[in-house]
């Protein structure tokens, strides 16, 4: 047995550090035939908005080299239906549920959070900041330091449960956002959401997604996500949850070595809904082989000349 497989955010204990990412595992009930969700450290449920959202017109997804693009439009059942239909199922689960919240205004973020806060079944909140700020012409909250700060501050006021801010990678210096998150009292940050990308059907000469551009995910982005996690762990002391292209236990370990406190599996769940179990098993074997008996000896154990990092060097 390896020590510190579990960890805490505030007083919430997560049995392990392998989570599944928002939007890639539904509400945890779709897959119950296929996997034992109780083995996971946590399930981050699909982003919830105040009202149900239809989502974007088709096509919403397309395959790319070692990845996929999506533009789901945050299709979701809305907070009321989540409370009445999904929360009751969570009672029977041993895994922790993290409710991911999306919104188009500061007020909406707060309202959704306040509606969910009373439920013990919700262990923590993840705030999806890759949403368009309708008041700012649709630019994403997560790319603007000011709106990022306001949301970080306002949601913090509404709950004493752990708050995880989920950062967008589509910024020049993600560490600036990480620092604000830390200053505003976030308990952790999730790094990262999808990267803006696009694909074209050359015969129809149309975008392959109805919204022209969408979010790239999957193994293609793993090196990029890892670099973002690296930038964040060196900028802040709060836990960083690594996300992006994790499909194997080796991938997960890369994130831990760089310094992630936990990781989330996203797109790989589509390839294999049982990816989480495989990763748990692989990590435990690796630790045994490498004689790592404490997870904390793995996390952040990268030995590197940090001053040589690319920010200061020529590519």
């Amino acid at each position, binding site marked *: 047995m390896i020590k510190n497989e579990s960890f805490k955010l505030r007083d919430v204990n997560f049995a392990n550090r392998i989570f599944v990412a928002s939007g*890639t595992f539904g509400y945890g009930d779709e897959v119950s035939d296929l996997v034992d969700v109780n083995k996971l450290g946590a399930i981050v449920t699909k982003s919830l908005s105040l009202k149900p959202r239809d989502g974007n017109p088709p096509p919403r997804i397309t395959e790319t080299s070692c990845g996929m693009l999506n533009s789901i439009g945050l299709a979701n059942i809305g907070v009321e239906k989540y409370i009445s239909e999904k929360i009751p199922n969570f009672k029977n689960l041993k895994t922790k549920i993290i409710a991911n919240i999306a919104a188009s205004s500061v007020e909406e973020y707060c309202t959704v959070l306040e509606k969910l806060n009373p439920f013990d079944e919700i262990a923590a909140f993840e705030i999806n900041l890759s949403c368009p700020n309708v008041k700012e012409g649709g630019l994403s909250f997560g790319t603007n330091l000011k709106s990022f700060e306001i949301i970080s501050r306002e949601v913090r006021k509404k709950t004493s449960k752990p708050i995880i801010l989920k950062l967008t990678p589509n910024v020049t210096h993600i560490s600036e956002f990480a620092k604000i998150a830390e200053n505003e009292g976030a308990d952790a940050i999730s790094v990262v959401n999808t990267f803006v990308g696009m694909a074209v059907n050359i015969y129809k000469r149309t975008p392959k997604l109805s919204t022209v551009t969408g979010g790239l995910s999957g193994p293609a982005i793993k090196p990029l996500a890892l670099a973002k996690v690296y930038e964040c762990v060196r900028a802040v002391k709060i836990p960083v949850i690594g996300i992006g292209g994790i499909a194997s236990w080796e991938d997960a370990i890369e994130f831990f070595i760089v310094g992630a406190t936990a990781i989330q599996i996203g797109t790989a769940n589509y390839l294999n809904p049982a990816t989480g179990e495989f990763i748990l098993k692989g990590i435990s074997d690796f630790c045994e082989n490498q004689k790592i008996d404490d997870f904390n000896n793995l996390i952040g154990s990268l030995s590197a000349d940090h001053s040589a990092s690319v920010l200061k060097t020529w590519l």
Partner: protein
Amino acid sequence: MKQEFVKIQKIEEFQSGIFELTFASKYISKNSKPGQFLNIRVDNSYQPFLRRPFSISNIDEDSVKIIFNAIGQGTKKLIHKNINDELDVIGPLGNGFKYEENTKTAFLIGGGLGIAPLPFLSKFLKDKTNIFTILGARTSNQIIRKDLFNFSVATDDGTEGFHGNVVDLAKKIISEKNITPDVIYACGPTPMLKAIANFANQNNIKCFASWECEMACGIGLCQGCPIEFNDSNKKYHLVCKEGPVIETSKIKL
């Protein structure tokens, strides 16, 4: 629904470029309905990246069959598999063709490779109803014939059977034979399905079609496979969960 690592029993090119792959699965053969599909990971590589959905084309005791055209990344890898190789299959998935007791006459209409679910459906229906199968394609060698009953052919270029599309051939059969189908079961390319749906709606014929679209998960996780309904409460429904077979009257055409 289960995730299974099944054994390949046979891969046969039964028509130029068109293959039937047979694998062993007690679970899937016992629990599948015509029109349901499987989501198959062709191998553990990332090329192709996503699973590939395939209609269950037939069930034969404990064996399950799919048919496909070796056109792309996934299907080309499938035909290079060997007997006894393992295949990672999730299924059966989605909703199949709805059958109502006392259906007297059913039209089964398939376009091109869209005929994939028809062998299984035919087998299920053949002792229950009168079947008229209509196959359409651009040209004769694109017509796929596989375990079908009582079929007529329509080709756009007139190289075989009726010179025209499947809807016109259906109309012709209806008028010539003086029958009205109780139900139409359709599968094929989306434009063809829409034409059939329009025809069925106009003539008040019940019609179930199997819809295709790109899928990531096939099990309702990604919300990537919407189809627009005539439903003021919920604009988009998921092809992988509500479908792939959906009654055409529900679809916004």
